[in-house]
């Protein structure tokens, strides 16, 4: 028994040592390191949840929403959880009644080789996979959270477009924010929310920051499965501002309908654009581009097929707004700039100019339209009847005065510089992203083009075009390549002549043309057009008024402007657009304008009509361009007529009176018109 007792004593000592060790360790963990673990616990126990701010609406000038929000039940998946347990997606596919493959595709990260549907946003954000979930589906998910770890079903605001396809390119669209964009934003680095989106195009992109608002932050106590237990701290979100635009949704629809009709009439037309400006303010009343598309496709995770369709040539690239990105030779609509250039070059305003059927520019004859001579004309009639040879001659004379092919002193380049003063060759600065600049083919441009193409031209000058079947065409191309190689950096006389009537290498956008005409028929000031009119808080408080800034002045005196405007005022009644406006009640509304028919090699002509009305104190400048639409008087002018008829209520409908004052938004968010 003694031995047992001795060994029990040893056991006793061991037990005491163990108890002391545990006590010491507890002291160490709880008291010495306690603070450390308290913060570690707070970290694991709380999660920052970003409460998305309601995005502001985009309204038209009378307060009608162009883009608004609708609430939707959105089912989102935590990508990491879904990858960890493949059963989650399988069960989700069953509940949502969708093919598993589709869900799997939608949670892939977009990247090289990964085509849509894929997730273009941050991998740490919950990925929305169903934006049209029913309450029953949402309940099935929420009630069995243990089967759906990382899956949430929340009511979220989703963009809605009451006007359907109307103004789609101008309004733009939203896409999930990328990781880089998220990191650039202040204070939200680690936080995420299900609907962190960013405006990718159009007004949504330009006014993104104002529309977005400031997301709120909720510190939520969560359990191991991420289920919220309670809120520790909350910062309420600040909803985004509403953007009131100067767009009149009725005129916008009118323009779109007119473009559609025009394209139907011109069988080879592959695109069209229409711009309506208020020349007195420089505000945009309508900005349309055809073909269009339904912006709702962006809302529910666009499919690769749809995406490719939007980008493809075959469907006419409906994502591209031809009003600001369509670059076309302006044809005779450009002559307003050329007249100004002539006046600045010293040609008298009241002079008389011969308009022969053809004019020799260097050793090459340049013809009038259909080669018909029009006798001797005033500048007024030259515009009304669209004589070309008067401008060929003036441009050629100016070209020679500048020194021809090899100017000795710096050339004046009056025609090019006047065009610049009319706002061509640079973006108008409208509040839309990615606007095109157009092109003014002057001597400097020729040089830079030659620098880029001479190597290829010179190679072709040697090798010719063996792949071209027609022998004569191949020979022509080879000669052209030789010319371009040898002297492609030179502005040739023909280039100068073509430029004066808006043909050749000159390119303008419909918006550029519209604002040049707006300046011409109003006060001579060139404005940077604006679609945005004001930003207001949801309760109606004005944040900021947006006014089109004056960015230049036309190089014309008031008298000269009045002369040109007067000439243009006769085009629709007696000139090249008379056919299109036959029977139009000019006594009620007198419409002025200028047709344009620009030749495009290998294609149908570009049809233009730049107009304004009423001729006394114009309220509207309307420009329509139909790519491959044929003659200006045939396709574009009738479309413009249709627009005016709609605005002035000439077909029996009520006339449209665009708002002149900002719509008043009451503090409860309703709009008083």
């Amino acid at each position, binding site marked *: *028994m*003694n*031995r*047992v*007792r001795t*060994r*029990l*004593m040893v*056991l*006793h000592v*061991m*037990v*005491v040592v*163990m*108890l002391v*060790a*545990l*006590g010491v*360790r*507890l*002291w160490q*963990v*709880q*008291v010495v*390191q*306690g603070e*450390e*673990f*308290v913060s*570690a*616990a707070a970290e*694991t*126990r709380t999660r920052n949840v970003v409460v998305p701010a309601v995005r502001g609406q985009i309204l038209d000038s009378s307060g009608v929403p162009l883009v608004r929000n609708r609430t939707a039940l959105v089912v989102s998946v935590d990508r990491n959880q879904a990858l960890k347990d493949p059963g989650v997606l399988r069960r989700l596919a069953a509940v949502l009644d969708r093919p598993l493959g589709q869900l799997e595709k939608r949670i892939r990260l977009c990247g090289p080789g990964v085509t849509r549907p894929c997730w273009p946003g941050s991998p740490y954000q919950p990925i929305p996979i169903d934006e049209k979930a029913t309450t029953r589906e949402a309940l099935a998910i929420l009630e069995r959270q243990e089967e759906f770890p990382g899956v949430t079903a929340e009511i979220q605001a989703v963009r809605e477009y009451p006007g359907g396809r109307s103004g789609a390119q101008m309004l733009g669209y939203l896409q999930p924010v990328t990781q880089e964009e998220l990191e650039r934003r202040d204070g939200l680095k680690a936080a995420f929310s299900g609907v962190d989106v960013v405006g990718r195009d159009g007004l949504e992109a330009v006014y993104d920051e104002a529309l977005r608002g400031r997301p709120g932050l909720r510190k939520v*106590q*969560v*359990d*191991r*499965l991420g289920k919220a*237990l309670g809120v520790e701290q909350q910062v309420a979100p600040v909803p985004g501002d509403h953007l009131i635009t100067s767009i009149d949704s009725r005129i916008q629809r009118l323009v779109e309908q007119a473009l559609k009709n025009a394209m139907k009439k011109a069988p080879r037309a592959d695109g069209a654009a229409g711009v309506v400006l208020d020349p007195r303010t420089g505000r945009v009343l309508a900005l349309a581009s055809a073909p269009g598309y339904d912006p709702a496709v962006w809302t529910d995770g666009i499919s690769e097929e749809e995406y490719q369709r939007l980008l493809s040539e075959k469907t006419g690239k409906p994502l591209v707004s031809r009003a600001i990105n369509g670059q076309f030779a302006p044809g005779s609509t450009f002559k307003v700039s050329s007249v100004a250039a002539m006046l600045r070059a010293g040609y008298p305003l009241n002079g008389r100019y011969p308009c022969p059927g053809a004019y020799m520019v260097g050793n090459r004859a340049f013809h009038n339209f259909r080669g018909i001579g029009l006798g001797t004309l005033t500048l007024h009639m030259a515009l009304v009847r669209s004589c070309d040879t008067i401008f060929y001659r003036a441009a050629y004379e100016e070209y020679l005065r500048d020194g021809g092919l090899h100017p000795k002193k710096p050339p004046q380049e009056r025609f090019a510089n006047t065009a610049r003063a009319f706002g061509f060759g640079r973006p108008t600065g409208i509040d839309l992203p990615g606007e095109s600049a157009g092109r003014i083919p002057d001597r400097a441009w020729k040089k830079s083009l030659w620098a880029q193409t001479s190597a290829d031209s010179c190679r072709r000058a040697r090798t010719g075009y063996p792949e071209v079947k027609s022998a004569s065409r191949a020979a022509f191309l080879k000669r052209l390549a030789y010319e371009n190689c040898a002297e492609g950096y030179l502005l040739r006389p023909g280039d100068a002549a073509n430029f004066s009537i808006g043909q050749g290498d000159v390119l303008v956008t419909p918006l550029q043309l519209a604002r040049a005409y707006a300046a011409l028929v109003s006060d001579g000031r060139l404005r940077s057009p604006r679609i945005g009119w004001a930003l207001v808080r949801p309760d109606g408080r004005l944040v900021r008024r947006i006014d089109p800034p004056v960015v230049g002045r036309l190089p014309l005196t008031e008298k000269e402007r009045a002369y040109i405007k007067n000439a243009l005022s006769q085009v629709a009644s007696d000139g090249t657009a008379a056919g299109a406006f036959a029977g139009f009640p000019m006594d009620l509304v007198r419409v002025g304008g200028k047709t344009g028919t620009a030749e495009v090699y290998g294609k149908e002509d570009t049809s233009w009509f730049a107009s304004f009305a009423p001729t006394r104190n114009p309220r509207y400048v309307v420009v329509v361009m139909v790519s491959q639409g044929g003659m200006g008087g045939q396709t574009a002018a009738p479309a413009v007529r249709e627009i005016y008829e709609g605005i002035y209520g000439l077909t029996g409908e009520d006339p449209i009176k665009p708002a002149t004052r900002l719509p008043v938004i009451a503090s409860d968010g309703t709009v008083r018109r």
Partner: protein
Amino acid sequence: MTDRTLMVAPRRSLARLTAQSAMRRLDGVLLVAVGALCVIGTLLVWSSTRTWAPGSTGLVKKHMLNLAVGAVLSSAVAMLDYRHVRIYAPFVYVVTLAGLVLVITPAGTAVNGSHSWIMLGGGFALQPSELAKLGLVLMLATLLAKPAKDGDRPRALDVLLSLLAAGVAIGLVMAQPDMGTALVLAVITVGALVLAGMRKRWILALALTAAGAGAAVWWLELLEPYQVARFAAFLDPSVDPRGVGYNSTQSLIAIGSGGLYGKGLFEGGQTTGRFVPEQHTDFIFTVAGEEFGFVGALAVVILLGVVLLRGLRIARQCGDRFGALVAGTIVCWLAFQIMINVGMTVGIMPITGLPLPFVSYGGTATFANLMAVGVLQAIRMRDRAFN
């Protein structure tokens, strides 16, 4: 007739007398300590399971029922004359073995990968490996209580029989597989042999054999990958804090965040959030750590210490070899389980699936632990040395 009456009457009164004096000899401190632990355990189980569903009290009610049944069993055992237990011991042992065999047949049910359960229906289940601990204690003490002629060392044959008895039980438990319980059974065996007075060189040989077996298990890769991972995570929990290191990391966070005085009952955010897995069973101590703080956790350790030291006192004061061996071995068993369980929650022991005696939720374990206390009380009350 009178003869018979005369013969019987004194024996009856003697029995009554001994029963009364026995009751008086009940170890009150042990009783209070175990009772306090059971009450604390009930609160902790409640705290850790009340968030499972709104107003969830199902599990804590079941736990209280387990405690009640355990108390009845414990009292019953305490009333027995422990010396008679020597006679029952082989039967108890065989019955528990039968249970162990039954669980690895299709009659058993697996929970968390271990085939350890026999479902009784009505939501009740039996875990024979818990009872096997007590069965083995009694069996080994019975075998080793009879000393060899040369003094108070066990006979070689009895040692071999003991190793055989332990080996069969350990083997069956490992087949479930339940490494934690197998380890406890091994500790019980070593404890019993050492306490019984086995020669030091035998002890050394046993230790070397155990080390050799351990090495063999390691080299032959007999362990499941999760067991190796658990061990690696023990050595450095930061290797994979979301995976195998998750338990120990979360357990430390829960306990550490309790600080000196704790967050108060039901106020532990880590407990409410169910960050620590198996919190009402193996990790129950983390609830004490978080909600009662250092003061409360230390109190639990002290109460457990009181139970162990009272057990040792009973063993030391016991007049016969059998009683001393049983009591001492029970202390070895409980001490080992406490050290592993509390040790793993504070990061000084690897994660092993062992419940904390008297505190953790678990029916069979509660029965076995309380019956072990009953055995201690029985030894205390009936020991001849005190009479």
